[in-house]
């Protein structure tokens, strides 16, 4: 196919047609017609004998009915059922071991027939790669904007709906699910217009000067602008304000935008004192926890002028996100002598630097505009295109000046399909650059990548390798870590679970944010730094800060920064399984939930999603004595013994039970707390009395394959020893789907297997896997038609 493309003498679309014909003739040559007679003659009798009882007119377990299945694997409607059937039949999962088994002849017949039919199906073009064209996702639009302008775009993209996640991969960037509608277009345009409007308003800001008149301190205290939040150890001494040792002074400042500001103050002390200037906010007025950022430390004795210029930068995203919070400047005295403040001035809204970074001392019309076009369209614009946009620029410039004319022209560029769509290029190198940047940066290619694309260097494996390494090193690839992790592992589920305050009195909700960060840190170590992916299953270390370490009962970790901490021998943590994120996310907020944990493990990590539960789940049975006193898992056991549920749940629940030492707040426990209402009400107040009882933890379990497990450590060992292949294949499949931004199917199974072999050879290094995915024909050719 692509040989045609590279021949300069053939018009590309003609070449495509030739490719088309070759493709079809190949396919026809092997005549991919389904063997329906063979099905009727040999296969249906086998299915009828061994499968119909559970998957037929009487029962339809897993919602599969073989009496109604479409026997046409090649192009029929039930490819997914057959794909699943082939897998469970070949690995001996089905028919279940306590049912009648087909003899070797029947086994052979069925497995050869399915294999042959699937081979034929694979000869037909993979319907999932019809077109590589796809629109940007919500988060890709965000990053594309932020890579072009020095302003966070969250506020602008917020009204856009999240993309539909693919039901097969759970990913949000699958081309076949990224639809466009008038609402989508409206919201995307609205986001772009809102974003550029904000930039305009920043450009047009006038600096504000606020002078803090210390003489008039008392009346200023009442004024809005400098109203204190909280202050301690402040005294008025003559003409000065005195900050006592350990005290601090908070000064409220107007809303800050991503524009720099300046603080000027004069202070002195009788002997050497140190004063710290910081900048911060609270989530809400009555919220205790503060976000603080230090702006500078100064030593002083004689009166001294202190000037601090603050430039917000990329890494301070946390502060930056909270544009509308009440901010304050804090002067704190860390020494043991008082500090006198003589004067204080704040200059806000200094947009000079912002403007400079937009203009960059370049000619707007002849340098900036072509450059912006190139990065937005991911190719050098044609002369006609450039002229078109320059003419727009010229008209506005005459009346509104350079910057506004530029922004106006950018608006038109950003609304163009050439910006909003990936995959529009005919040139292979340009396509590769674009695919690579959306894969690793969730955004557009940078200059270096585009330069090499335009010099046709990206098809050179050596150069490509360099780019991948460079891009993984760049902090922009943290976006890949974040979004791939979110789409693969769904860590945000945790935020939908309310950790019960009666059961977990000391649970601080900010721990959830720390847990999420732990998950991202661990994924970062594997996805970008190249730690073995098996460390996601079992690891001797965790990524924690002080607060989280405390929750995990780890001693000696200090500070708010996350650090890699080596675990003591036989400590239960380490790996994804024991991260609070997933322990909370797969609980009900009160107690652990073995089913949810088991499903999460098999579905997400072992790539073996259990079938959806049957409709009409029977309610938990009868009034069993002491039902109230049972733990959730004991109640579930009652439920599991029901015949309709057993076959699936015996594959799920034992995994979940191995997590039993972890409660619904993600903490370790030796006993299970149950709070129940006492029948008798308290005499005085007629209020219900709650009774706290403790049940023993039972984390010993037996898997459906009769393998015994003793708790979490044993489970992790088991996974690494016996299931690592399933785990790595699942990861390969997900990453491939993410890189190709499409669903994967049985058409891709050979590639997935091959990549997995290489992955194992490379000691489960994801960066190596990324190189291999990029090298694959599927990524390279992209089947551009």
């Amino acid at each position: 196919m692509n040989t045609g493309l590279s021949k300069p003498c053939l018009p590309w679309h003609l070449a495509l047609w030739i490719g088309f014909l070759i493709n079809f003739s190949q396919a026809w040559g092997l005549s991919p017609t389904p063997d329906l007679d063979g099905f009727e003659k040999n296969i249906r009798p086998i299915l009828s004998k061994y499968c119909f009882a559970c998957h037929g007119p009487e029962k339809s377990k897993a919602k599969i009915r073989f009496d109604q299945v479409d026997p046409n694997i090649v192009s029929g409607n039930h490819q997914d059922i057959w794909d699943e059937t082939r897998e469970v039949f070949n690995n001996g999962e089905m028919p279940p071991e306590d049912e009648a088994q087909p003899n070797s002849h029947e086994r052979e017949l069925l497995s050869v027939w399915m294999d042959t039919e699937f081979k034929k199906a694979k000869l037909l073009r993979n319907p999932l790669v019809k077109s590589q064209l796809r629109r940007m996702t919500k988060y890709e639009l965000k990053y594309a904007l932020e890579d072009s302008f020095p302003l966070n775009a969250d506020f602008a993209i917020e009204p856009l709906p999240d993309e539909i996640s693919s039901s097969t991969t759970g990913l949000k960037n699958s081309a076949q699910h990224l639809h466009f509608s008038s609402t989508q277009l409206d919201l995307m345009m609205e986001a772009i217009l809102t974003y550029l409007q904000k930039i305009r308003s920043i450009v047009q800001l006038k600096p504000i000067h606020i002078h803090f008149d210390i003489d008039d301190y008392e009346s200023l205290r009442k004024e809005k602008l400098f109203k204190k939040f909280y202050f301690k150890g402040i005294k008025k001494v003559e003409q000065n304000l005195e900050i006592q040792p350990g005290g601090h002074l908070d000064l409220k400042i107007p809303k800050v935008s991503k524009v720099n500001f300046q603080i000027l103050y004069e202070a002195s002390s009788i002997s050497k004192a140190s004063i710290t200037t910081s900048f911060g906010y609270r989530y809400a007025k009555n919220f205790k926890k503060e976000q603080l950022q230090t702006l500078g430390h100064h030593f002083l004795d004689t009166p001294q002028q202190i000037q601090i210029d603050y430039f917000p930068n990329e890494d301070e995203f946390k502060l930056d996100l909270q544009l509308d919070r009440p901010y304050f400047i804090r002067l704190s005295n860390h020494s043991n002598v008082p500090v006198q403040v003589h004067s204080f001035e704040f200059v806000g809204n200094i947009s000079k630097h912002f403007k400079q970074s937009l203009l960059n001392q370049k000619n707007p019309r002849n340098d900036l505009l072509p450059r912006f076009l190139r990065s937005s369209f991911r190719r050098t614009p044609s002369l006609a295109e450039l002229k078109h946009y320059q003419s727009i620029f010229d008209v506005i410039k005459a009346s509104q000046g350079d910057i506004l004319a530029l922004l106006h022209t950018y608006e038109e560029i950003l609304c163009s399909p050439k910006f909003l769509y990936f995959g529009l290029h005919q040139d292979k190198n340009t396509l590769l650059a674009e695919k690579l940047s959306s894969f690793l940066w969730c955004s557009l290619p940078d200059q270096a990548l585009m330069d090499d694309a335009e010099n046709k260097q990206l098809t050179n494996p050596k150069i490509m390798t360099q780019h991948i390494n460079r891009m993984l090193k760049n902090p922009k690839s943290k976006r890949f870590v974040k979004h791939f992790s979110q789409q693969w592992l769904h860590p945000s589920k945790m935020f939908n679970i309310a950790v019960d305050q009666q059961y977990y009195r000391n649970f601080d909700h900010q721990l959830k944010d720390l847990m999420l960060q732990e998950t991202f840190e661990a994924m970062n170590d594997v996805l970008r730094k190249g730690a073995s992916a098996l460390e996601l299953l079992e690891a001797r270390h965790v990524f924690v800060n002080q607060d989280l370490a405390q929750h995990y009962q780890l001693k000696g970790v200090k500070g708010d920064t996350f650090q890699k901490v080596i675990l003591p021998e036989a400590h239960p943590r380490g790996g994804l399984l024991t991260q609070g994120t997933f322990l909370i996310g797969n609980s009900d907020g009160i107690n652990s939930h073995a089913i949810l944990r088991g499903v999460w493990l098999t579905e997400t990590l072992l790539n073996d999603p259990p079938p959806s539960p049957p409709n009409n789940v029977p309610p938990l049975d009868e009034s069993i004595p002491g039902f109230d006193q049972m733990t959730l898992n004991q109640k579930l056991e009652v439920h599991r013994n029901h015949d309709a549920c057993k076959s699936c749940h015996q594959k799920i629940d034992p995994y979940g039970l191995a997590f039993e030492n972890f409660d619904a707040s993600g903490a370790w426990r030796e006993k299970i707390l149950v709070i129940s209402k006492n029948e008798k009400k308290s005499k005085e107040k007629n209020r219900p009395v709650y009774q706290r009882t403790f049940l023993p933890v039972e984390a010993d379990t037996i898997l459906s394959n009769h393998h015994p497990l003793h708790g979490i450590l044993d489970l992790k060992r088991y996974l690494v020893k016996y299931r690592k292949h399933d785990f790595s294949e699942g990861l390969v499949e997900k990453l491939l789907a993410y890189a190709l931004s499409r669903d994967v199917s049985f058409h891709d199974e050979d590639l997935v297997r091959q990549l997995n072999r290489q992955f194992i050879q490379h000691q489960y290094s994801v960066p190596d896997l990324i190189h291999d995915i990029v090298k694959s024909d599927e990524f390279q050719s992209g089947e551009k038609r």
Partner: protein
Amino acid sequence: MKNKSWHLDRKTFLRGSGIALSLPYLNAMTIQGEAQSLKQLPKRVAFSFFPNGVSLPPENDPQYEEWHWFPKGQGRDFSFRTIQNSLNPFRNDLSVLSGLSNPENRNIPSHMGSSGFLSCRAISKNSSINAQSIDQVISQSHGRNTPLKSLVLSSVGGVGSLHRSYTLSYDSKGRAIPAMSNLRQIYEKMYLSNSPASLAKLKRKVHLLNAVYHDAKRLHLNLGIEDQKILDEYLTSISDLEKKLEHEKFWIKQTNTNKRPQLKLEINFNDVENYIQTMYEMIYLSFKADITRVATYQIASEGGESPVGNMSKAIGIKKDLHSLSHGASKGDRGYIEWGQWDQFIAKQFSIFLNKLRECKEGDGCLLDRCLILHGSATGKSHDPHNYPLILAGGKKLGHRSGQFITYPENEQALSNLFVKMANAVDIPLQNFADSNGRDLKGIFA
């Protein structure tokens, strides 16, 4: 604007007199003759949905008497149990329906049912495309006459996935329509601003669309067939949006910003009761001022991972929504707890109905010309049969309210009801989705 149709004239009048409009409407129209003007009163449809089914203890359960969702009695002689007692004052304005469901959705995982609730179609495993939902079929005709073609709301907002949808509405191509959840955003959509800034933005958008259209057209020529198909979707979006903006432009001119109601908009679904009330209020206000005639509201989304799953906890019930639907068993408090949530939902719905009934319009009240279907896409937990459904309002649209009707489930389909509802609001629909033409006896005159 010389040859204004009667319609436009009326619209101008409606908008001009703003929100407080109800009775004066009739007076202004008396020249037309009363019967004629009554005929011209707008007819509206709304759908409100709650997830995971309802509390249905079996007859031999001690909780059956009070906490079984379906009412006592049958036919015209029925009354709500404790679980929905707040609806008793409205029993003559509504019908309770039993035995209806979407046949195609009976065999798919039940939590997927919300995406098929109004489309009556089951979604295949690998697809991201549904079929057009009934509300959108209706809004295709009714939307022309109002500033908003339809009001699509949900507490979560957006689209979710087809397995766990966050919207009830799907457009003519089966694509999910993002639902609005942010009250400020909804308000601003309802009350179009005619400030110079918004007008300038509108003008800018029209200009950009035009520019972008030519861009896309040129690109289109150079693409392969499959790529063209993708870009066609974009081109269609442009022309659809152009029409929408044209429509918006027309309505902005009629805007009277002084008549915007004061609402508390800075609340979200954590403030459960106020939030649900305000969402219903939005539908009420839109109907009253004829801002739209079609609305959908997904009160909460299906399943255990729903972002609004803790709504029940926020109102003091011990379990989240999904656990409520699984936690009920005989002799346990489970049905009571679940029933308390259902009771809460019924109360919210009754407040909404009350507003519509209190508002006089023509020869009756607003409720008389609104058909509101309220219900869920599962009966018991994980059982997509026998949907709990209430059809409220529409007395003047032929709805024979005041009944509890049970239909034979193996013969009937929910789509048959949708056809009837569409017909009641003057949509000459013969069939919808899997409707089988079997008459739903007794419900419409």
